[in-house]
């Protein structure tokens, strides 16, 4: 069974959002998503300072089996990108919720956080 940590928020597109409480959230893909994708070969991630509207494509993830787009779970501006994934993309598979985070976003509208999926709702989705 895929791991769904209780302290994170989720999207139906299998991203997780870690609310750090300081207006910045950390975004990555879930354990379920990495399992479905299989071995990640590389990622295309945005530059620091890029702004996204909610649901905008912020990057792509190339796995051996398929390519997937990454969607901004919230509107915001990229404050940090996990550059370690450039050389070590497999971390997304081995530690999706930890070292495998992808971007940090400065949230534009904190009210949007309340519309994200809670862990039990996401668990129900991946059944």
């Amino acid at each position: 069974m895929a791991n769904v940590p209780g302290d994170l928020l989720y999207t139906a597109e299998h991203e997780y959002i870690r609310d750090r409480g300081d207006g910045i959230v950390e975004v990555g893909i879930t354990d379920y998503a990495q399992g479905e994708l299989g071995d990640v070969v590389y990622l295309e991630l945005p530059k620091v300072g890029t702004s996204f509207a909610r649901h905008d494509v912020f990057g792509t993830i190339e796995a051996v089996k398929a390519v997937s787009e990454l969607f901004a779970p919230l509107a915001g501006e990229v404050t940090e990108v996990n550059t370690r994934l450039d050389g070590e993309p497999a971390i997304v598979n081995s530690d999706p919720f930890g070292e495998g985070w992808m971007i940090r976003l400065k949230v534009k509208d904190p009210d949007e956080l309340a519309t994200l999926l809670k862990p039990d709702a996401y668990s129900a989705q991946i059944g």
Partner: protein
Amino acid sequence: MSQRTPLHDVHVALGAKMVPFAGFEMPVQYPAGITAEHKSVRENVGLFDVSHMGEFMIRGPQAIDFANYVTTNDVAALAVGQAQYSTILNQGGTIVDDCLVYRFPDHLMMVVNASNKDKDLAHISAYMGRFDCSIEDVSDRIALLALQGPRAQEVMARFTDVNLDDIAYYHFQVATVAGVPGVILSRTGYTGEDGFELYFDASRAVEMWNALMSEGSVTPAGLGARDTLRLEMGMALYGNDIDDGTTPYEAGLGWLVKLKKGDFVGKEALERQKAAGIPRKLIGFTMPDRAFPRHGYPVSYNGAASGEVRSGTMSPTLGIAIGTAYLPLAAAKEGTEFEVEIRGKRLPAVVQKMPFYKNASHR
């Protein structure tokens, strides 16, 4: 309703990800993942269940004449105990399927792609009337395992009394393996590594799998690794590199066509194409930038569209993007530059001679 191989429950118990493929539920990967499985086969030894493949037995006084008429390679040139790679064409000279033909003392076995099996059987049966022979589809009764990797012989030697050095590449013997009698033990494969393919009674499949796996260092490998392994070797995949819109000459499979052997289905069309000139050729390419070419991505040469990527991956062994595409004949030589369009961006690609991976252990 998709079919299952006799090893379905074994794969599920191993944690395989099962996907629909050619009407079967097949393991695309095990928990180790495609990259690790690929590496195991290149460096050690892996075991594939490819029982979905189709097998036809062709019997009768004119079995060889018939097989020669419906395939392009020369079946009459096969010695007993030898196998050959070949193609089945339609009258237009394009490829209905690629196949293996095995010669036994009194019959032939034809091995075809699962996705084409019914089509192949209908196609070749239509030409049977003029030959004194019979054809039987035995696919459901035969399990097929492929043990592949530089250590394949060392592992196989523990399960059979056959002197494996006596079985050369593309040759076979009928032997007892792991206590299972009547196994067709064939030194063939789809990975470029040394190895064996074992055709045997489907009811013994679990027993055979467990015996080979009991050796300890054998890695179960799925269709995902099978695809990356074969592409590194430039081996064609039906539905990607070859299909009923391509001729063997275009696909670089002219070596499978023996025009001098006598008449065969598609011969006239091939002779016409040869006389008129081959318009395009399947080439291998690499990409200098970080990119992941995939089947179906648009290809352009000199600004003009030139079909699409036929096969593509990030080579697990070489760490670079590799793929195949059809280019106009004049462009189909090493070093030619063209472009692959990936999500709206045109990225450079360079024609490279296949195989991409040159240190494989097959012999």
